[in-house]
């Protein structure tokens, strides 16, 4: 029995006014940005070298975002939750390592063996951050596995503030300045040497991370849990252990990011984790959360947009002190990505979960 279809449906969901409004707003924003860029470029205040500088600064900042974003993305991939406290994990390494750096500097070791000192600082910072990350997982997240999603999110926010103000209480609210590392002073072509150190550090870390995930049993376990936790458990993977490993690895990278941050920006304080944390999250979402290369790409893209954006988008309109709007750009990108392309630029690796 076949019936000739009287009407063949081709479109998607019928048009919804709320969606229409959202798309209109998005369109207007895009138009503003485009028009601003055109106006700026036609005015021609900036030389090519300056645009290049913007990109270089953006990449240096973005590389650090990328390193932190990797931690977000890994945890999200495995647990499907945002580790809100990740920015503080990053801060804890940088803050604590200041004292090591300061000690090395005072004792003259830093001058004598800068490379050894640097590696020691990176390792130390990584270990501190790792410990903090694992503790956070153990205390604030693990007991709540299986609770409604809202619950671990709230503890994550709590953990974030707890860590911030613990470090404030321990080390004070003042700003601490890392000693300069002699071999990293000065420029190489258009780059600062510290910036190059950051790129190299990020590349090495990323490579090690990929190797770890692809080539080790622990990495395999993490990937299995990320794919399907129940199935992995049935196959004999120790889920808790895989999750702890994820936190540990993510924390270690955040710690390394902390020292690299200190190389570029020198000053550290207890609040330093908050903004980079949010930005790194933005980067992770931008690249497609749960997707490792995505986090790296997202970080770089965000860094560059932040660096170029204020000049490119707003200068054309003659907006005063456009640089102040840098974070507005970052947050707007975050919101827009979440609205229009929640799977990010490179796509979400770990599908499966419904997000209607």
């Amino acid at each position: 029995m076949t019936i000739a279809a009287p009407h063949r449906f081709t479109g998607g969901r019928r048009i919804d006014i709320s969606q229409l409004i959202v798309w209109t707003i998005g369109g207007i924003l895009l138009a503003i940005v485009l028009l601003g860029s055109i106006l700026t470029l036609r005015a021609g205040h900036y030389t090519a070298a300056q645009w290049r500088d913007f990109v270089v600064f953006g990449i240096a900042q973005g590389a650090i975002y990328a390193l932190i974003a990797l931690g977000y993305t890994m945890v999200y991939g495995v647990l499907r939750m945002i580790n809100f406290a990740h920015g503080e994990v990053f801060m804890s390494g940088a803050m604590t390592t200041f004292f090591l750096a300061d000690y090395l500097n005072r004792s003259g070791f830093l001058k004598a063996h800068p490379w050894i000192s640097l590696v020691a600082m990176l390792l130390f910072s990584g270990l501190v951050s790792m410990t903090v990350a694992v503790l956070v997982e153990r205390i604030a997240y693990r007991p709540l596995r299986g609770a409604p999603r809202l619950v671990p999110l709230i503890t994550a926010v709590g953990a974030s503030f707890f860590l911030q103000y613990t470090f404030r209480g321990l080390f004070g609210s003042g700003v601490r300045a890392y000693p300069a590392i002699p071999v990293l002073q000065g420029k190489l072509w258009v780059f600062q040497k510290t910036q190059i150190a950051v790129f190299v550090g990020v590349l090495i870390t990323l490579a090690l991370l990929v190797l770890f995930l692809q080539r080790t049993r622990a990495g395999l376990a993490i990937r299995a849990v990320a794919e399907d936790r129940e199935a992995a458990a049935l196959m004999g993977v120790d889920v808790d252990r895989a999750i702890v490993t994820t936190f540990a690895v993510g924390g270690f990278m955040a710690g390394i990011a902390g020292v690299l941050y200190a190389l570029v920006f020198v000053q550290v304080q207890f609040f330093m984790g908050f903004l980079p944390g949010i930005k790194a999250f933005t980067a992770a979402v931008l690249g497609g959360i749960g997707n490792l290369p995505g986090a790296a790409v997202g970080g770089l893209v965000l860094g560059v947009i932040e660096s170029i954006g204020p000049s490119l988008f707003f200068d054309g309109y003659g907006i005063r002190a456009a640089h102040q709007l840098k974070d507005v750009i970052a947050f707007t990108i975050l919101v827009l990505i979440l609205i229009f392309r929640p799977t990010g630029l490179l796509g979400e690796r770990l599908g499966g979960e419904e997000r209607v």
Partner: protein
Amino acid sequence: MRRPIRSFTVLLLLLAFVLAACQRAQPTPTPAPAAQPSPTPAAAASPTPAAQPTPQAQVTKPTDPIGVLEIKPGEPIVLAWMLTVSGGTAQLGEDSKRGIEIAIEDLGGELLGHKIELVGEDSGCNPEGGQAAATRLAANPRIVAIVGSSCSSEARVGAPIIDQAGLVMVSPSNTAPDLTDPAKHVDAYLRVAHNDKVQGRVAAEFVVNKLGLKRVATIHDGSLYAEQLANVFAENVQKLGGTVVAQEAVSPEDTDMRPVLTRIATQQPELIYYPIFNPAGSYITLQAKEISGLENVKLMSADGLLEPQTVQNAGQAAVGLYLSGPDLTVLGPKYQEFVQKYQQKYGTKPVAGFHAHAYDATMMIVEAIKKVAVQAPDGTLYIPRKALREALYQTKNFSGLTGNLTCDQYGDCADPKIAVYEVFSTDTAGWPDSAIRKIYP
């Protein structure tokens, strides 16, 4: 026995509410805080003219349009500070706080037979902190007067709150011109720090006349102090024949200043003037020389960065940085004595530029209290608040550590001496002499 009395007072209070409400409606619509301060004592309003307690005054409690503070025997006279003692600007406020503490110590901790108690609130060097601190201080009815605030932003929102509460504040380190601008000044506000109209002028003279630089850029951080000082500087540079090629802003939380510096570099300035605070100030110091086009630019900041932290944080990059600020080198032997006390008490030389000002502010307040306070035979002390304010405004040739202070009708009391310092070393152990030296005037 007490209960009925209490409820009676409550009733009275209620009545007073209503009466006050009715009364207030009739006169001019100008609210109290906006009223202009009168340089001369309003004879009808202020109860006790400057002299020592008169026999009549000893018997009756004085009256005062904004209230009389009553200090019973055995109760302390409460002075308060409202300074930034945390975060990146902690040294600035801590330094001033020590000035107050030394002043109280010099008084032997006592005034008119009452102990002096010092309380305080951290005002965080931002408007919100000023708002919160002022609100808390205003709610403490025991406070006589306040030494503060540290940063001009704090005062801008804090002063009206203090004013409303009937208190008075003397700032050791606010320098923004706005605060004593005739149109914007609030009655409760005085300061012993210089007005930045002076600092900005001196800085501009130094840059244009002494250094011979013509193209300058300015950066502020959105704070009242920075914004206004940058503006005054810019105006003066233009007056002296220079050009201001860029006026930019950063926010105090920014860490990456390279983009904004690159924007400035497009205009090829010879000097960047950024009168802001730490840590943002140190970020600019650190990052400016990295920018292509700014390799040879001169950097200059102001008293907000006149603290060892600036040199500690920026390290080698700080060498060559110019800093304008109060000139402490021309101060007399009294100041040297003070510094010695400071060193004895805190184990370090003064860590910022406004310790002496805080000392003077405290002493000025104490003088004024002595003038207006009325002592009852039983030792109870009455301090009429409006009269206290007026006494402060009448301060003339008060000999303080920072010079001879005379207050004008808008609350400017300073005897401004501005110097420009240069950072020549990264050694902050013997701050200030080991790291900075005066080069102008």
